[in-house]
């Protein structure tokens, strides 16, 4: 891996719980008590059109989801070794998040069908901050991050 650290996130009061959860290896997201669906990223109201309720609660997500879309980046990034996958995962509880796909030796389109089931893994960064990545569920047990 390149030894330059990634651009690391700086939480705000509204998102702190998500990042604190990652340190505990928990995927903390919010669910709307009005429409019943999870959403991401954190804020103290439901962003879903037609709802916008302020009655929301933190939950611990299952960490399961599906691969909604992605690119395989082939250009260099100081903190990533190309090729690497920039993915958007749709969480089982609802909500979409950008992430990376871990556990692939050589990412190819054939190995990454849209809609494939994925599950969260936790990647500790230099300095100790933990960020989520996802791996294909079918690959569970192989090459854990």
């Amino acid at each position, binding site marked *: 891996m390149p030894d330059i650290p*990634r*651009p*690391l*996130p*700086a*939480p*705000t009061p509204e*998102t702190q719980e998500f990042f604190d959860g990652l340190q505990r290896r928990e995927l903390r997201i919010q669910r709307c008590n009005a429409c019943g669906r999870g959403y991401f*990223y954190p804020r103290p109201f439901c962003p879903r*059109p037609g709802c916008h309720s302020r009655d929301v609660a933190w939950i611990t997500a299952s960490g399961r989801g599906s691969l*909604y*879309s*992605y*690119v*395989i*980046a*082939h*250009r260099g*990034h100081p*903190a*990533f070794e190309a*090729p*690497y996958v*920039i993915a*958007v995962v749709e969480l089982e509880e609802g909500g*979409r*998040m*950008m*992430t*990376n796909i871990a556990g692939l030796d050589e990412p190819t*389109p054939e190995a990454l*069908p*849209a*809609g494939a089931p994925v599950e969260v893994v936790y990647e500790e960064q230099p300095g100790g901050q933990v*960020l989520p990545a996802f791996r294909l569920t079918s690959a569970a047990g192989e090459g854990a991050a």
Partner: protein
Amino acid sequence: MADSSALRHKVAIVGAAETTDLGVLPDHSVLQLHAESAFNALDDAGLTLDDIDGIATAGVSVAQLTEYLGILPRWIDGTAVGGGSFLIHVGHAVAAIAAGYCDTVLITHGESGRSRVGAAAPARSPSQPPGQFEAPYGVAGPPTMFSVPIVRHMQQYGTTEEQLAAVSVATRQWAERNPRAMMRDPITVQDVLDSRLIAWPLHLLNCCLVTDGGGALILTSEERAKDFPKPPVYVLGRGEAAQHVNISQMWDFAEWTAAAQVTGPEAFRMAGLGHADIDHLMLYDAFSHTPIYAMEALGFVAPGEGGPWFAEMHSAPGGSLPVNTNGGGLSYTHTGMYGMFAIQEAVRQLRGEAAAQLPNVHTSLVHAPGGMFSATATLILGNE
């Protein structure tokens, strides 16, 4: 329901020009690109800076621009939502002129996208949403953000890499006819597929250019518009919307929702026109997929038919509905906020002064994203 049809045809573009040169201009700062565009457009309209009483721009602050130009406008608009901002400025200028806020609006664009002379450093805070939720995962500029939805479109509709490549090929065919276009050598679908991978499914030739340049527009009321040297180009319809900043938060990765639900219907309703009335399209092509999404969202083809439509070369010279006749952001120029150049080519076609001039053009639809499908703008222009 909001209805802007009373403003149809009330305001016209009476001056339009780009910087004298486009491409690699290391001897121009960003502000001078704005100024050169402004002077060229003023010359085109037979006006001076002292005739301008309204100004709009993006990329630099309006205040910085007024200082540099030495003017004191009574109406300003600094809407800055990326490449489509200038289309939105046109729509705002229509309302401002019709409301009597000002008489003569100057809209400028200048960007040293390639040479970066006098350009602001891109700054992202790690505590803003992009810094918290996207930057940590290795996004590195538009090629790895704007591209993220494409796989969903491929999965849902069977859109192929060959179809994406066809957009680049058709657009290059227009550029071959335009001496001002930066890239003019013919290319094939295979050339696109063989060009190096940037962010699969995008290859190098699926990506827009990175250039220096600028452009400016001058607008005034319908009553005054006939007194200028060039034939007026009327603003018939406009629409604008904003939805997200982070590409992961785009509502639907297979559909350009803002265009389908807001800007397209609004522009057509204001113009009182239907799809069959549109002679020419300028669809902002930051990458090969953006025109495909635009064709579908605007309703020129059904969802999922955009890829096949471009592959059948309907947009190319000789095709049924010409698209991006200057050569587009893919082959003509792309400073970073290309929307201004899309408007410029629509004006040239409607005036009859385009390099690849089409016969019998009476209407042109210009459509652009700002950011990563983040904001959206549509304009319908006409010459009658």
